[in-house]
Structures are given as structure tokens and as C-alpha cells.
């Protein structure tokens, strides 16, 4: 039965997309129903697949394929590959997608284009699930781009406003820039291997067909794509702006699933990355830098979704870091837990935004009383994110820190610092948003409807308990023979101090106001501005685009019109001028004509004479 039946998992949402687009578009609730029904079935199938894996074992991937295109030398397939990684991802994606789609019933209830919304969401799910199930590089890339375009469409869902329109474009172009590396890497390896297939290429890598240096180049190029998709420094700039999309979309795409595709890709191609220590080093460093870099920026953001966005970047950095130091299972486990609690946090934030109609935390405050469900689930998510035991994040992050400490102390330091920041900024969010006195926008806030609360609760529960599957997860991913690394209690006790310190600092600053955060901002003004302006990366890119790309473009446009086309018009002008001048040779005086005849004859004679004819 497996994995053939899994074709339904991506196919059902895709069908939902088609049906909504062509049939149910005018009836928005029907469209929502179609989408949710499709993803529910996909969810159940995914659960089935996972349990199948748990019982039947996941050592060898199960693959079915179909020819997609074929020429004399090319042979590309689309197919389904069921193994531990894809099985887990299926569950993560379908779970979060289902939660988000249910949640959206409430959150988007006043949206007239609900059909379009659910159509896009369904298309996204289809592409994401296709990505997860990919059997080969080409399919991976195809779905990779498709999720990108869904992200583009959903960020720009409210396309009649400037900011989402701009953010959507930025997201697409930035990730596309990374994808360029992906594409080149993919062409390199597939041309060399003569195949797109993971299994075949893995065999060739294992057989030592290529040198580590060459593989490293390929891996780094492929990682460019992953870095773009997973918003790693320096391609992270699009993710905060992507928050212009509807919040459930942020939860699904920009927190739990699509942005994790980069991590998934590195994990999927771990056979390739791990063959090149240099590439692994690159992944680890980029991951570590991203983790601390984004966490620092998150410290000072005012927009609740942007805090979460930077937090997502930072957590994705942790995942990359884990992969980079060889902890594939740890990275994937963090992906797994992060998906739940980050989706939860976004949905919680959405609930808040839904109630207050603002994104700015400083206009909220005191929402704890008015929105208790939201508050408590949000706190659960925050604790999970901060890595406080025994929430899910604790297990996954602890595993990462443990691994990194064994490999690279500098990166470990970064990771610990990042962890501290994480706890601090989440505390800050909770204090400013939910505690204290109510500010402007909190006035008539009220708890969200049950369709929104139920997903919050479910995700909160998952955020609490998901960590306990730690050992089972590792066994599944590493394969049966690999020994699962147990929890090192001593180490955990020490690292547990870090988030607690962060929370404490947050409470001191934002509840007790000692020291006063505003005063600190003034005191460390340069640093504060640097963080506030997000290290000026966006400005740098704007400058590059404005000054270099657009000027180049304008210059070339000028060149094309005036030099290339100018040459063409010049030839035309010259032709006309020649004609005009030539015309005046014809003076109208008959003796000039006779002179021409005589002259012509004389020239002919001269030529013949010079040529020696007589």
C-alpha cells in the first residue's frame, strides 16, 4: 500500500486547489470546507504513513516513480519516497497545515476572497508535501520553487496594499537568488552523475566517485538555496517583511514548514554534505551566525510578528548549526518541535492581532485577562521556544547545544548567547503584550472564537509533549542500529540556567522596570540603533539594488537605445543621407550628363589600361 497511496497526500490538496479555482470560487465557505477536507485526509494518511514506518521500520526508503520527461540522455522522474525524514515531515506539515486551516476559518472570516486564500493554501500544501516526498533533485527543485511561489502569492494576499505587494516580491526575488546556487549545484551534480535520483547519487557519493572538494562546492551551492529558503544570513531579509501576509500564513509557511524546507533539504542531502567537511563547516558557521544575529535583532523589534520572524530565523540557524556539526537527527528534531511551538506562537500572535487590529506590541498590553486562552497557550509556546524544561524546545535545543559543544566552542558560545536572547525577547513579548496595563489597542479586545482557540490548544499540547518523543525520533531518523543519545542531565541542568537567566532579565526590565529599558536604549544608543536598523543589511541591499543593479539596467537600456539601436538608425540615416547627397549629382544640366558619360568612358579605359588589356 505504501508509498503508492501517499500520492494522495499531495494530490488531494492539489485537487482542492483546482476544485476551488474552477468550481467553488464563488462560495467561500464551501471552498474552505473543500480545502480542510483535503488536508484532513492528507493528515490522516500521513499519520498512517508514520505509524507504518514505526512498525515496519524505516531503514530503506520506499520509492515509487513515474517518468516526467525523457530524452536520449535525460531521464527525469516524479515520485514518492517514504522514509523517516519524509514520514516525519509529512506529519509536521499536515498537522500544522490542518491547524492553520481550521484557525483561518476564524481569523479570515471577514475576508471576501476566502476562496482564493484556501486555494493558495491548498496549493502550498500540495507543493510542500511534494517537496517532502521528492525522490530526486529535480522534483525537489520543482516543488521548492512551487512553495516559493505560494509563499509569494500568500504574502501578497492583500495585494491591493503596497507593503504586502512589495514584501511578496522581495521574498520571491531573495529566495530566487539563493535558488540560483541550488540550480547550479543541482546541474553540477546531476550532470556529473547522469541522474537526478537521490538513491543513485547517494550510491555514487558513497562509492567515492567525486573528490571532497568538488562535492563541497556542490554542497555549498545547494546550501545557497537552503539559506535563501530558510532565511539564513545573509539572505534572511525577506522573512521579516513576509509578515505582511495573513498571520496564519506566517504560521504555516514562514514558521513551521516552508522555511524549514532548507533544513529539510540539507538533511535529505546529508549524504552529500557530510562527504565534505568544508561544506559542513560552512553550514555550521552560517547557522551559528544566523542564530545569534537574528536573536539580537529580535531583542528590539516592536512588531510582535517581526519578533517572531527573527526568532524563526534564529531557530532555523540552530537547526543549520546542528546539521553543520553533524547532528542530523538533532537538527531535524528541532525542526519538528519548532514547527509546533512556532506555529503556536504565530497563531497566538494572530489571535492577539485579530483582537487588537495592530501589530505593534506597545499598543497592546494587559491582554492576559481578556484573552486567557491565548495567553496561556502563548506562554507555553514561549517556554518551549526558550528551551525551558520540560517543554519541547528544551529537548531539541539541548541536544543541539550538546552536540555543538563537542565540536566547536566558538559556535557553542554563539548558540548559548542566542539562547539567552531567545528567552529574553520572548519574555519581553509576553510582558509587553499580555501583562501590565492595557494600552490604546487593547481597549475592546476579546478572546478569539473557538475555531481559533482549538488549534492553539492542540498545538500547545504538542509543544509541551513533543519533546518527550526525543529518543524515538532519533532512533527513527538514525535508523535502528544507531544508538540514540540519551539526555545528559548534568549538561541539561547547566544549560537550563541560560533561558532562566534570560527570563529573569526580561522580567526585570519589562515588569520591574529596573533597569528601565528606555534608559538602556539611550545609554547604548549606537548598539540600540544598530539592532533597531537590523544591522543595516536591508539598507545595504537597497543600495546595491538601487545603485548597482538599477543603474546598470538603466545604463544598459540607454546603451541599447542609443548605441546598439543607434547604430541601426545610424546606418539608416547614412543611407538616406547618401541618397540625398547623390541626388544632387543630378544637376539637370545636360552637359554634366555628357561629362559623366565621357568621364565614365575614360575611367573604363583607364581601368582597362591599368589592368593591361591594351
Amino acid at each position, binding site marked *: 500500500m505504501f508509498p503508492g497511496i501517499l500520492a494522495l497526500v499531495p494530490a488531494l490538496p492539489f485537487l482542492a486547489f483546482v476544485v476551488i479555482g474552477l468550481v467553488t470560487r464563488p462560495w467561500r465557505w464551501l471552498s474552505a470546507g473543500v480545502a480542510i477536507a483535503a488536508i484532513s485526509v492528507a493528515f490522516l494518511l500521513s499519520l498512517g504513513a508514520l505509524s507504518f514506518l514505526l512498525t515496519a521500520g524505516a531503514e530503506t526508503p520506499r520509492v515509487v516513480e513515474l517518468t516526467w*520527461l525523457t530524452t536520449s540522455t535525460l531521464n527525469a522522474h516524479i515520485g514518492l519516497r517514504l522514509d523517516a525524514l519524509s514520514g516525519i515531515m509529512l506529519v509536521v506539515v499536515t498537522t500544522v497545515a490542518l491547524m492553520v486551516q481550521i484557525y483561518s476559518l476564524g481569523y479570515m472570516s471577514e475576508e471576501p476572497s476566502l476562496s482564493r486564500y484556501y486555494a493558495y493554501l491548498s496549493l502550498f500544501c500540495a507543493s510542500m508535501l511534494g517537496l517532502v516526498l521528492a525522490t530526486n533533485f529535480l522534483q525537489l527543485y520543482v516543488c521548492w520553487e512551487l512553495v516559493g511561489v505560494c509563499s509569494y502569492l500568500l504574502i501578497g494576499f492583500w495585494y491591493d496594499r503596497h507593503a504586502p*505587494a512589495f514584501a511578496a516580491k522581495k521574498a520571491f*526575488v531573495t529566495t530566487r537568488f539563493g535558488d540560483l546556487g541550488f540550480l547550479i549545484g543541482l546541474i553540477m551534480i546531476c550532470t556529473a552523475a547522469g541522474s537526478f535520483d537521490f538513491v543513485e547519487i547517494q550510491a555514487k557519493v558513497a562509492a567515492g566517485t567525486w573528490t571532497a572538494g568538488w562535492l563541497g562546492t556542490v554542497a555549498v551551492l545547494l546550501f545557497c538555496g537552503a539559506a535563501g529558503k530558510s532565511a539564513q544570513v545573509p539572505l534572511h531579509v525577506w522573512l521579516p517583511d513576509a509578515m505582511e501576509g495573513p498571520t496564519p500564513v506566517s504560521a504555516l509557511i514562514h514558521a513551521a514548514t516552508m522555511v524549514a524546507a532548507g533544513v529539510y533539504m540539507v538533511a535529505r542531502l546529508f549524504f552529500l554534505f557530510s562527504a565534505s567537511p568544508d561544506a559542513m563547516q560552512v553550514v555550521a558557521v552560517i547557522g551559528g551566525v544566523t542564530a545569534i544575529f537574528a536573536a539580537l535583532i529580535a531583542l528590539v523589534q516592536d512588531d510582535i510578528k517581526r519578533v517572531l520572524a527573527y526568532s524563526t530565523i534564529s531557530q532555523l540557524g540552530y537547526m543549520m548549526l546542528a546539521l553543520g556539526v553533524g547532528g542530523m537527527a538533532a537538527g531535524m528534531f528541532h525542526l519538528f518541535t519548532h514547527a509546533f511551538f512556532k506555529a503556536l506562537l504565530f497563531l497566538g500572535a494572530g489571535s492577539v492581532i485579530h483582537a487588537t487590529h495592530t501589530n505593534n506590541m506597545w499598543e497592546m498590553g494587559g491582554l492576559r485577562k481578556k484573552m486567557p486562552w491565548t495567553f496561556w497557550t502563548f506562554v507555553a509556546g514561549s517556554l518551549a521556544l526558550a528551551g525551558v524544561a520540560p517543554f519541547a524546545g528544551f529537548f531539541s535545543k539541548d541536544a543541539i547545544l550538546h552536540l555543538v559543544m563537542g565540536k566547536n566552542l566558538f559556535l557553542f558560545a554563539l548558540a548559548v548567547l542566542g539562547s539567552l536572547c531567545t528567552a529574553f525577547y520572548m519574555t519581553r513579548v509576553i510582558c509587553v503584550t499580555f501583562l501590565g496595563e492595557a494600552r490604546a489597542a487593547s481597549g475592546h479586545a476579546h478572546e478569539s472564537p473557538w475555531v481559533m482557540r482549538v488549534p492553539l490548544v492542540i498545538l500547545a499540547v504538542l509543544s509541551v509533549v513533543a519533546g518527550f518523543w526525543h529518543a524515538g525520533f532519533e532512533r527513527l531518523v538514525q535508523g535502528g542500529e544507531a544508538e540514540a543519545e540519551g539526555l545528559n542531565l548534568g549538561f541539561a541542568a547547566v544549560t537550563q540556567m541560560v533561558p532562566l537567566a534570560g527570563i529573569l532579565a526580561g522580567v526585570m526590565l519589562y515588569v520591574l522596570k529596573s533597569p528601565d529599558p528606555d534608559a538602556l536604549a539611550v545609554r547604548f544608543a549606537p548598539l540600540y540603533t544598530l539592532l533597531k536598523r537590523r544591522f543595516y543589511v536591508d539598507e545595504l541591499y537597497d543600495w546595491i539594488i538601487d545603485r548597482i543593479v538599477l543603474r546598470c539596467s538603466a545604463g544598459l537600456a540607454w546603451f541599447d537605445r542609443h548605441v546598439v539601436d543607434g547604430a541601426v538608425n545610424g546606418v539608416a540615416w547614412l543611407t538616406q543621407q547618401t541618397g540625398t547627397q547623390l541626388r544632387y549629382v543630378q544637376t539637370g544640366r545636360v552637359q554634366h550628363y555628357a561629362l559623366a558619360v565621357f568621364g565614365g568612358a575614360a575611367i573604363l579605359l583607364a581601368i582597362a589600361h591599368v589592368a593591361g588589356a591594351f
Partner: protein
Amino acid sequence: MAAVSFTVIGLVLAALAGFFGYQAATATPFWLTDVMVLPLAGGLIIMALQDKYARMTKWIAAAFSLPAMLMCIGLALAFRIDGAGGYQFAEHASWTPALGISYSLAVDGIGTAMFLLTGVIIFAGCLASWSVEHRVREFYALLLLLTSGVFGVFAARDLFLFFLFYEVAVLPMYLLIGIWGTGPKEYSAMKLTLYLLLGSAFMLVGFLALYFASGVTPLTFDMDTMLKTAYSPGFQKLFFPFLFLGFGILAGFWPLHTWSPDGHASAPTAVSMLHAGVLMKLGAFGIIRVAVELLPIGAHAWLPYFAVFTIVNITYGALVAMSQTDLKYVIAYSSVSHMGIVVLGICTLTDAGLNGAVFQMFSHGIMTGLFFALVGFTYGRTHTRIIADFGGLGKRMPVLATFFTIGGLASLGLPGLSGFVAEFMVFLGAWRFNPVLAVIAAAGIVFTAAYVLRVLQRCFWGPLNPHFADITDANRVEILCLTILAACLILFGMYPRPLVSLINSGVVGVLARVGGGG
């Protein structure tokens, strides 16, 4: 006059009926001639129509182009891919033996794909011209005449015939742009015509050289005979540029491309569609069919150098498109960029590259047809093509915006739409050929993404420009036109296998002749 026109119409119809009847009676279908004759017959009937029946013109045009499209689809389905493919549906008749000219038609996989493209574009083009009101009869008659020429080029197996159809396909453009165009139409029409015919003049010189150097007696323009001829290396190296550049002009080869932005921008909708969608492909088709296939040594000697120019095409076209202010210019430059991918694919002389090039010919034809149709429809409502004047049109024209998005995404090579398949194969081929070029070419697609999305954002997204508060969305005819085109993009993007197999059956033949790398 009424009697005359009815007589002419009757004669054309009778001839047509007789022709088809003859085929039915003798069970010898002339598929290619049939497809080619249909638009021509439609054009003749339209020309013979009296003024007072002018409103029937569109229906007649549709009535003749729809069967042409369906026959093209039938042709593609009936084409036997199994085995080496080769040339099929061959027709041969002696024509002017004194000059070695024969009426010789046949298509291989590449030609069939181009027939399919032409069939789709002409029908969509007829629908897209539904709003033409000025001198309707002449418009459709010329359009259909041109289409017959295009079909002829894609099927010709005789260089004389090839050239004849080529000119028939190019020349009506002058009037089509000059009469029904916009902006500096006379200038653009003149530039386009002279530039393209200059190309054809060089082609002609090359054709004559091929003719005499083949060394067979009696001399012949027959391409199959020339295929069997081994031209001397010196000869091939001398004449390959003539043919390549002659065709290259039509294919928008940098720096000989500047007719294209002006021409496409000035042309009426259907003409832009046909021109960018199909006629530019004639150039690329000619490069494959004549230049590369007949002069393989010349191709190997010259193409590495020409490949560098195609890289300029791709990146430069995209960059220039980025700072255009007129929507049609953006699309015209994007055509320049995309045709660069086609020619690059050909230059690689690899299996993947050539397949990609032909696939891109098809894909870009459909895509650019879609684009020009959209621009035409939008222009018909807004009466401006300046990007800065638009804004938020998606609010009032969601259907057009959706199709524009599909076209745009296909243009930037989004997987799932046909553009990706083509570009991907070309890049694969280019990598085998020269990795540096492949990387630069691939970088071009980032720019493409940038300008396509910029246009989408500026025109259809953002707050609605109040100036356009009460414009209407696409009507049924327009939706039909757009749907046909978009369906092709999606269909062959999602499942390219049938088309790729079709094309590959032709590419195998080309590579067997050229001896390119695998």
C-alpha cells in the same frame, strides 16, 4: 461586384472541397498542405468578402483557424515517436525542375512541435483580435496569409520553398504593423521589415551557396539531398555565419535584436503574439534546420563564439527589460532575453540543450502570446501601456491579473509551468558545453524574476489607481483566448513528457547529423 465576390468565394470553397474530397477519395491525406491551405483559404475568402459582410470576417477567420489548430493537435498526436521519429507526413511533387525546385514538405518532431505552437497561437490570435474594427477584412486576410507562410516554413524540405514561405511570413508584418499599429508604427514597421529582410538576403546567399556547393547534378534545393552532402570544412566555415546571422536576426540575436522592441511595441495585439510567439521561432528553427544541420562543421567552429552573444542576450535583455517604462517594451525585451536561451540551447549542440531550445521555442511562443494578448486587452481598457500609469488593476480585473501572473511566472521559469522545463534543459546542456556560460545564463533568471514581479506589482498589485475605477474585466472571447494559452503553459509544465518526447525524436536526428555530445 457582388457577383465577383460570391464567385471568388465559391471558387475558393469549391477548390477547398475538391482538394479535401480528392484526398478522401484517394485516401492520401496531405496533412501538411491541408493545415497550410486552411488559413490561406480563409484569407482569400475574407478578401473576397464585400464590405457589408465585414462583421462576418472574425467568424470566418475563427472558422478557418480553429480547424487548423485542431489539425495541428491531430498532427502532434498522430506523429509516431517510437523509434527514431524522423520525417513524417512527407509530401513531394516536382515543381521547377530547371532550377531543382520541388514542392517538398515533411515534419520531424521539432517541426510538429512548431506546428502545434503555430496552430494554438493563430487561433488565440484570431480571438485576441476580436476588437479590431478598422479595415477588418484586410487585417484578418493578412494575418491568415502570414500564418500559411509560417506553416510552410516549418514544413518545407526544400530551401527555395523555405525561403518563399519565409518571406510570405515576414512581409505582411509591414502592413499589419503599419496600418493597425500604435505609436511610431511606420518607423517600427519599416525597421522590422528591412532588418528581417536584410537577414533573409544573407540567408539567400547562404542558400545559393549550399545549392551550388552540393555538387549533385542536376542541382537541387532539396534539403534531404543536401543533408547527404559533405560540404568542405572551408565552405562550411565561410557560409555558416551567413545562415546563422540571417536567421539570427529574426531570432532576436544580440546585437541584431533592436527591431524587436520597437516592432513588438508598435504592433497590434495579434501581430505581436504571432510575431514574438511564432515568427521569432522561425529564426531559431532556421538555425537548427538549415545552418546547424546542413553545415555541422561550421556549426562546431562558430557556435562557441555565438554562444557568448546569447549570454549577452539573456542577461542584457533581462536587465534592459528591468528599466523599461512601457509594458510592451518590457515584454519585448523579455523576448530578447528568452530567445537568447533558445539560441544558447542550440549553441550547446547537446541533447539536453537542443531539446531545451525547442521546448523553449514552444513555451516562449505560448507565453509571449499570452503576454501580448494580456497587454492588448489591458491597453484596450486603459489606453495606456506606461507601467507607472497603472496600479492595482488586479482589483478590477482579477481574471486578467491571474493570467498575467501565470504568464509572468512562466516567464521567470517557475517549475510547474513550461518555461522551467525548457530553461532547465538548456542550462543542463549549457553546463556540459561551458559551465561559465551556464552560470551566467542561470543568473539571468534572477533578473527575470525581478522585472517580471516588478511589473506585476506595479500594474496589478497595490492600491487601485482611481482613474481606472470602472474598467471591466476580460470578456468571454478574451477568456477563451487566454485559457487556451495558459492551459498549454500549465499542461506542458506539469507533465512535459509527451512534448519532450516529440521534440526529442527530432533532436535525435539533428544530433545524428551534427554529432554533438550526449
